C-alpha cells in the first residue's frame, strides 16, 4: 500500500465519519462543526488530487462562507448547549431510507457509466487555464454558464435585500446596503 493511498483512506474516513456524526448528533452546533470537518475532508481530497484551485475555492466558499453563515444563524436562533428532542422512530427509518435511495442512485450511475480514459488530454488545472476556460466564448468555453450563474446570484442578492427591508414604503430611496448593515448591527449590538 502506498503512502498516497493511505492518505486517501484517511481523508475519506474523516469525510464520512464526520458526515455521519453531523446527522446523528443531537446538538445543532456540533452538527454544524462536523459538517465543517466533512467539507474540509473533501477539500483535502481535492488537494490530494492536485486540484489546488478547486480545493482552495472549496474552503473559501463552503468553510469560510456557508458554514460561517450556518453557525451565525444558529447563534441568532438557538440556545446554547441544548439538546434537540429525539426524532420519532418512523422518521428515522424514513430518512435513512431516503439517504440509502440517494446513495443507491449515485452508485448505480457510477457503475453503469464506463469511465474511458485518454479520450482527450485533461487540461492542467492552473489558474490561467481555469480563467481562460471560464471566460472564453469559443469551443469548450464556459462564458454563458458563468454569466447565467452571476445572474442567479444577483437575483438572490436582490431577494435578500427585499426580505431585509423593514417596510417597502418607508425606505425605498435609501441606499439598500445600508439597511442590511443596520439590521446586522441591531442583531450584534
Amino acid at each position: 500500500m502506498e503512502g498516497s493511498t493511505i492518505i486517501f483512506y484517511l481523508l475519506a474516513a474523516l469525510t464520512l465519519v464526520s458526515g455521519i456524526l453531523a446527522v446523528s448528533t443531537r446538538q445543532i452546533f456540533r452538527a454544524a462543526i462536523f459538517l465543517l470537518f466533512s467539507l474540509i475532508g473533501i477539500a483535502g481530497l481535492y488537494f490530494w488530487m492536485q486540484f489546488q484551485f478547486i480545493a482552495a475555492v472549496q474552503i473559501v466558499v463552503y468553510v469560510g462562507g456557508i458554514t460561517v453563515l450556518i453557525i451565525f444563524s444558529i447563534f441568532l436562533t438557538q440556545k446554547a448547549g441544548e439538546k434537540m428532542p429525539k426524532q420519532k422512530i418512523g422518521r428515522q427509518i424514513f430518512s435513512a431510507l431516503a439517504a440509502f435511495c440517494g446513495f443507491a442512485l449515485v452508485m448505480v450511475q457510477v457503475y453503469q457509466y464506463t469511465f474511458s480514459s485518454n479520450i482527450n488530454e485533461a487540461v492542467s488545472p492552473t489558474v490561467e487555464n481555469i480563467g481562460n476556460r471560464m471566460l472564453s466564448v469559443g469551443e469548450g468555453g464556459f462564458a454563458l454558464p458563468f454569466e447565467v450563474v452571476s445572474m442567479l446570484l444577483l437575483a438572490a442578492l436582490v431577494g435578500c435585500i427585499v426580505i431585509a427591508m423593514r417596510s417597502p414604503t418607508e425606505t425605498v430611496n435609501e441606499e439598500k446596503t445600508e439597511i442590511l448593515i443596520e439590521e446586522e448591527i441591531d442583531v450584534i449590538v
Partner: protein
Amino acid sequence: MWSFHNIANFVNDWLSQTFNPTLVTIIEMVIVGVCVIGLFAVLGLVLVIMERKVSAWIQIRLGPNRVGPKGMFQSLADTLKLLVKEGMTPSGADKFLFNLAPYIAMMVAMLLMAPLAFAKNFQMWDMNIGVLYITAISSVSVISVLIAGWSSNNKYSLMGAMRAGAQIVSYELSAGLSILSVIVLTGSLNINKIVLSQADGWWIFKGHIPVIIAFVIFIIAVTAETNRAPFDLAEAESELTAGFHTEYSGMKFALFFLAEYVNVFIVCAIGATLFLGGWMPFHIGNWQGFNHVMDFIPSSIWFFGKTFFLIFLIMWFRWTFPRLRIDQLLNLEWKYLLPISMFNILLITAMAIGGWYF
C-alpha cells in the same frame, strides 16, 4: 556560503543517501513540523516581549525590566507560568468543542505557514495558488473563534465570537481586494513568481499611488482580521472581559494567545511579500552596481526585516488609536474601505493593461 537554501539541500541530500524515499519524505515532514513548532515558540516569545516594550515606550513607560537583562526574559517567565497553570473547563461548557477550539486556531496558523517564502528558494510548499490558499485558509480561523465563543456557554464569549465573526467576514473582502491588486499587476498567484516580479523594484514603489492605497487598505483590513486594537471588539476587555477566550485558562489560553501573534506575523509576512518584495533585496531598476551591493545582505534578513517592520507598524496602530464601536467598524468597512478598494482595483487594472507602472 550559508543560506537556508543550502542547509535544506544539504539535509535533503544526506537523507536521500542514507534512507529510502518513503522514509526520507516522512523524516522531512517531521523535521518541517518541528521547525514550524520551534518557529512558533520563538515568534511567540519575541513578539510578546516586542509588543510589551513597544507599548511601554509609546506610553512613556519602561515596560518589563526585572527578568533578565532589560527584562528580555519576561515572556519566557510568562510562558512558564501559563504552562504550570491549571487548564479549567467550565461545567456548563460543551467539553469536546471547548477543548477543540484552541487547537483549530493553532492548526490554521500552522497551515498558513506552508506557502510563505522565508528566504531565496526556501519555502515549505511552492504551490501554484499560494495567495489564494492563504486567503482560503485564513477564512477558517474565524471558525475557531466561533467555536470557542459558543462552547464556553457564556454570554460575553458568545457576544465576542459574534462580533469577531461579523468583523472577520466583512474585512476579508477589502483584504482580498487589495491582495487582488498585486495579483493583477503580477499575473500570478504563485508567491515565488510574485517575489521574482519585484526584482526591479518593489510593487509599492513600482505601482505608485494606487498600490500605496491598496497597501494602506491591506494593513487596515488585516489589523481587523487579526482582531487587534483598534479593531479588538471581539476581546474588548472593558466591555466583554476577554471576549471569546474569557473561560480559557492555562495552556489553552496560551494557544489562543500564540495563534494571535503568529497570525499577526503571517499577515505581515504576506504584506511584505506582496508589497515590499518578500525576500527580494532593495533593487532600483537597472542600477546594476547598487543592486549588487544590496544582494550581499542575505535574503532571509530582508524577509524578516520587512515583516518585523510591518509588525511594528501594526503595534504602533494598536497603541495609538482607541477602539472603534461596532457600527463605526462596519461603516468603515462598507462605506469607506470597500468602495475605495473597488475603485482602486479598477484603476490598477487599467494601469496593468496600459503598462503605466515602472
